């Protein structure tokens, strides 16, 4: 250790120890004065021999226990943390690992298929490397799933019993699917290179289908709790299918598939980043740079349509119950969406930053780099608008000066018209960064190149204009009209992304290379950005998991089964974010172990030392 540091630490530690000794001595002297040992008066002493007394007490306890009738327990308490926090943490960890286990096979299959189609072995190696992370994660997912089930049975027996009575027909298929999942996963992993490529791709497809089916069943249980259907007012089951196919089931299914891919991609990119930072050869750096890029590409590609799936989910929540919808957006949870805006804004900023850094890999990047400052300005501006709350926390004098809790200028940015506009422009900007990155080092050579560029620019400008125009128009119309404006906003952005990509594919077919991509030639900070994105995604999943579950407030099953436990209240957002943070840290410790175990695969076999 540094000598100067040691010189400094020595006296500080000495002073600290001295203070501790003085304090301990003071406590003993002031609180522990001498007293005679207490002895019971002779008259009060029970003359029964100790052994006989102990036997009699045990017999009495036994008799009492036998006489006590069996009674159903509604709740049990988890020590120290309480039942809710315990269930919350375990469920969150289970879901994070499940999301990872469901997502990785999706893009492993896609990458493997690209490798098969193009004959490029790099893709095959990449898909295999992604899959290496699966087997340990699968075990952890199953372990946390079992842990969660036992915790529910032990801590919330009445509620669990009710859920079992509603969904018992789904349990056998669920377990059977789990067997199939294990079969496909292990044959897919251990069978790498052992089958014909099409057979292996078939195994990957089976893995994805089974995994998605498992998720659909589990989603039915949790969405039923939020938007129950198929039961009477007092909870009697009328239709199991209706209970499964409740209002929020399909939106959650779609939202989760997309979000899982985004999350899985980000964690896989983080894995590549860790390996890149530890790599000792240029070859390894090049490989892990590429792997990180692919993982991040998958993550951001899935992330871009995610807000649209979120809109649909929110719409269905409102359709099911305005009460629930307004609790989410206008009530106890409204400030949670400001935290969400900070997270998503950071994700957009980081994703764009990574792409801009990535342009440095390619020679001849200079012509495109001049656009980055405009993109950065657009992203920052949209981030600021999105994170602006409608009501501002202020002192009494500030409130008086503003004439209410809404700022006379900034208040206009706190409403949905502004936020919808901001998020759509954010998506368009990030899409533009992708497009610029894709074009780096290439020049279109097709005869209609000029017209193609002009068409792309026109579509982009038209989409941006529609989004901004409708955003401003929303301030001047009734709520009934305003709510519907988000549909054309979203549609124009989706149309722009699809049509511009389609044009781009043909435009750059057979393009002239003006610079080669040099994988591995990227600043190390880019790899920390990938890790930052993974942590932010994970935290975002934890937060949104909380709002989905917490929205029910004092109901186990909304409007059907009330929560009578001591944890029936809705905690503060500060408390919720602490629980989310601890869970996220636990996840990263565990995923670190997964990475380490996966890395053992590549180590040399143990060689016992032999005596010469």
């Amino acid at each position, binding site marked *: 250790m540094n000598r100067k540091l040691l010189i400094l630490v020595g006296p500080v530690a000495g002073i600290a120890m001295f203070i501790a000794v003085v304090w301990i001595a003071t406590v003993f002297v002031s609180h522990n004065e001498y007293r005679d040992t207490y002895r019971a008066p002779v008259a009060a002493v029970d003359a029964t021999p100790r052994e006989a007394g102990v036997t009699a007490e045990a017999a009495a306890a036994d008799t009492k226990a036998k006489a006590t009738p069996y009674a159903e327990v509604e709740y049990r308490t988890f020590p120290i943390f309480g039942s809710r926090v315990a269930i919350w943490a375990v469920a969150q960890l289970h879901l994070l690992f499940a999301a990872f286990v469901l997502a990785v096979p999706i893009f492993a299959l896609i990458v493997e298929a690209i490798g098969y189609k193009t004959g490029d072995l790099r893709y095959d190696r990449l898909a295999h490397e992604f899959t290496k992370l699966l087997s340990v994660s699968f075990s952890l997912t199953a372990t946390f799933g079992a842990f969660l089930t036992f915790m529910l049975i032990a801590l919330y027996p009445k509620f669990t019993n009710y859920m079992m009575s509603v969904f018992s027909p789904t349990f056998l298929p669920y377990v059977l699917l789990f067997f199939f999942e294990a079969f496909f996963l292990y044959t897919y992993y251990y069978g790498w290179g052992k089958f014909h490529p099409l057979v292996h791709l078939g195994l990957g497809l089976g893995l994805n289908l089974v995994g998605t089916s498992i998720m659909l069943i589990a989603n039915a249980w949790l969405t039923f709790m939020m938007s129950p259907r198929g039961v009477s007012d007092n909870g009697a089951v009328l239709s199991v299918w209706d209970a499964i196919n409740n209002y929020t089931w399909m939106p959650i299914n779609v939202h989760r598939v997309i979000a899982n891919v985004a999350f899985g991609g980000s964690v896989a990119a983080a894995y590549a980043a860790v390996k890149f930072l530890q790599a000792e050869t240029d070859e390894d750096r090049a490989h892990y740079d590429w792997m990180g890029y692919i993982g991040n590409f998958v993550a951001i590609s899935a992330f871009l349509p995610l807000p649209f799936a979120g809109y649909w989910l929110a719409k269905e929540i409102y359709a099911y119950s305005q009460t629930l919808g307004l609790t989410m957006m206008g009530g106890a*949870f409204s*400030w949670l969406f400001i935290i969400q805006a900070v997270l998503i804004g950071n994700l957009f900023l980081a994703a764009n930053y990574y792409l801009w850094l990535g342009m440095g890999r390619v020679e001849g990047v200079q012509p495109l780099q001049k656009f980055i400052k405009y993109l950065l300005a657009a992203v920052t501006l949209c981030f600021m608008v999105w994170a602006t709350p409608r009501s501002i926390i202020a002192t009494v004098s500030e409130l008086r000066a503003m004439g209410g809790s809404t700022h006379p200028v900034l208040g206009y940015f706190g409403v949905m018209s502004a936020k919808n506009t901001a998020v759509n422009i954010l998506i368009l900007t990030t899409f533009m960064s992708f497009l610029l990155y894709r074009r780096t080092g290439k020049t279109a050579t097709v005869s209609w190149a000029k017209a193609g560029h002009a068409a792309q620019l026109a579509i982009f400008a038209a989409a941006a204009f529609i989004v901004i125009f409708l955003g401003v128009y929303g301030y001047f119309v009734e709520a009934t009209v305003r709510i519907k404006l988000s549909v054309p906003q979203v549609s124009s952005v989706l149309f722009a992304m699809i049509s511009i990509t389609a044009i781009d594919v043909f435009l750059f077919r057979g393009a002239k290379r003006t610079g080669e991509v040099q994988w591995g030639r990227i600043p190390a900070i880019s790899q*920390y950005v990938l890790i930052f994105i993974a*942590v932010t995604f994970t935290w975002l999943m934890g937060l949104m998991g909380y709002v989905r579950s917490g929205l029910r407030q004092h*109901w186990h099953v909304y409007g059907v089964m009330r929560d009578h436990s001591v944890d029936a209240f809705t905690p*503060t957002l500060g408390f919720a974010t602490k629980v989310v943070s601890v869970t996220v840290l636990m996840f990263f410790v565990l995923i670190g172990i997964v990475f380490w175990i996966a890395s053992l695969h590549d180590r040399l076999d143990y060689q016992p030392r032999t005596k010469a």
Partner: protein
Amino acid sequence: MTVPVLVRIGALVVATTCFYMYVGQMVPQKEVQPPAEVVLKTDLSPPEMAKVGRQIMEGKGFCLTCHTIGKTEGPYRFPDLANVAVRAKTREPGLSDVEYFAQAMYEPNAFIVPGFNPGMPTINRPPIGLTDPEILCVIAYLQTLGGTTTVTMQTKHHYNSGASTTAAPAEAPAAPAATPAAAAGKAGGQ
């Protein structure tokens, strides 16, 4: 001194997580308690009923999440309730203000105020689940918004058919919770 890569990564993970936790501490902190269970007395006076009605609207009824009282500028998600007692007397031909308020809560989609979307839940059923006496108290408060309270705990209307004369256990107004479209008027109503 070179910091090992794994230590740097660990520090980044912890710092990022702590940053978001810090953001979580910066927003308003509110703990929402579930509605407490109490019994409404049957001999409440009209002013007492109005007072209880206001508490129900802020709490168990979840009314004021959607409805405002005295908001002067749009946008309005649901109708503002200022002077609602005046409008309620003539809103639907053949319905008195009490009958109109009762219809708004027991059968909220029977009439939607032009310019607004349906969205108000049925107030006497879960998850809101106000009892008949509680709904009478809410009506009592709504009558004070531009008028005077005329209902009593014994008032009968189309939907309670004498139920208000019994001492039904009711869940009292609780800590102001997030408030969905509830007791004080139909979605789009008033």
